[in-house]
């Protein structure tokens, strides 16, 4: 069996004339935490949506466990979990129903047992049981992210995606979420793919970092290699400078 959990080859996606992914090649190894960095509008979210089947790529190949997923009829989501940027909790359901959504959907567990399991996972992400019956609208941004994380990990997925997990959070809460991501992923032995432009978060959670620029992966390596790299695009991005080869359209 291949060492790669996810294999992406020659992936293209355009919206009209705008090329967003322009031949992406990327691997995520088993149990690895890969962080994709890149500026706003460079196609990070599109990449993650293509892997999840939320968008159909124009061409290329995405394999999970060696099986092609583009155009497959199989339910590829059973082995995946996802934490959305805005948490994307269902307003019409309570917190515990959100967390236990997949368990209830599968129908193999009673509502009482699903609620108990949801409360247990909520505890793991640092939320008290009395949060379970609240509505998502009653929670703060940080709490919503924790609930989103609980929902992503409750079925012990093999792959977890994190879409800008720390965006909109204060630095302390961002660090708490980073710790929870590391704990959850290591606890499950899952492969994770995180997209972010928060370098503090990337440094903390990444085994390996890849940089996406103009629809291509232009650099990849470990955090140590990143700090030593003389790639001008990478240097500009991690230093947060407006001067360099990356031009920002104003």
């Amino acid at each position, binding site marked *: 069996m291949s060492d790669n959990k996810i294999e992406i080859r020659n992936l293209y996606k355009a919206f009209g004339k705008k090329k967003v992914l322009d031949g992406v090649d990327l691997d995520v190894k088993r149990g690895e935490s890969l962080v994709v960095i890149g500026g706003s509008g460079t196609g990070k979210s599109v990449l993650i*949506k293509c892997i*999840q*089947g*939320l968008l159909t790529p124009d061409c290329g190949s995405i394999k999970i466990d060696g099986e092609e997923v583009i155009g497959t009829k199989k*339910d590829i*989501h*059973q082995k*995946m*979990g*996802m934490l*959305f*940027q*805005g948490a*994307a*909790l*269902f*307003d019409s359901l309570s917190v515990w129903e959100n967390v236990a*959504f*997949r368990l209830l*959907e*599968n*129908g193999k567990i009673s509502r009482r047992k699903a609620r108990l399991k949801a409360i247990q996972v909520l505890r793991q992400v640092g939320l008290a049981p009395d949060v379970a019956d609240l509505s998502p609208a009653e929670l703060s941004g940080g709490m919503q992210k924790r609930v989103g994380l609980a*929902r992503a990990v409750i079925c012990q997925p093999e792959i977890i995606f994190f879409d800008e997990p720390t965006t909109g959070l204060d630095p302390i809460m961002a660090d708490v979420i980073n710790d929870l991501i590391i704990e959850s992923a290591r606890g499950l032995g899952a492969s994770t793919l995180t997209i972010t432009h928060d370098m503090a978060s990337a440094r903390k959670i990444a085994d390996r970092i890849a940089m996406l620029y103009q629809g291509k992966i232009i650099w990849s390596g470990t955090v140590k290699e990143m700090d030593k790299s003389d790639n001008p695009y990478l240097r500009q991005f991690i230093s947060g400078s407006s001067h360099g080869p990356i031009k920002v359209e104003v």
Partner: protein
Amino acid sequence: MQEKKNISSFLQAFGKPLVAFVINLGYFSRFVAKSIYNCFMPPFYIKLFCRQFMNIGFYSLPVVGLTTLFAGMVIAIQTYSGISKYGAESAVALVVLISVTRELAPVLSALMVAGRIGAAMAAEIGTMRVTEQIDALVTLSANPFRYLIAPRIWAAVVVMPLLVLFGDVIGIFGGYVVGIYKLDFNPANYINNTMTNLQAIDVMTGVVKAAVFGFIIAIMGCYHGYRSKGGAQGVGEATTNAVVSSSILILIFNYLITEVIFSR
């Protein structure tokens, strides 16, 4: 050369919206086909169906009741003022009966429900779209068409005929109230006229129309919500489009169904 340019810009001005219309029509046809297919595929979300049933049906009762009550009253007055000079007061009950059951109850109820429910559906699903809740459904292995759209379509198709039957009774009652208390008709004669002229085809026409209108309201609300984008403004546009398009379609289909049933 100038003439060529003029022709080109003329064709562009008409061609662009035409192409956009055809593309949207394609999206819409695909959406309708997918929605109908998923209405018959398990899992069936009974709890969500019941919630929509209450939203569309029970909470629309006051609106439908008031609308059809006053419509029935107006028809009674207008009919009387129009035909009293020919000594045909007894026809008032018949005209109220036919107008309410065949046209007023189904059409007015549907327009009111389109405003109330079509807008709510578009806003709710549109908000779910722009906050990535629909994407979240997919990543949690739930089919959005079965989870969000099928329960709404089923509820609207089942509950609209019931709402229209309720509207029939209230509308006829409105005509009765005006006939008895304002036009001084004999109550027994009025009821007798109504019952004698009551035909199954009239009521069934209204029921069939109601089911079709229910489908239109749900599908337009869901479609515009599902395709909305661009945050609050996009959701606002989706809501407006859902109400306007369903209202127009209700009036078009009202004519078509009437034509099919009564043209002979």
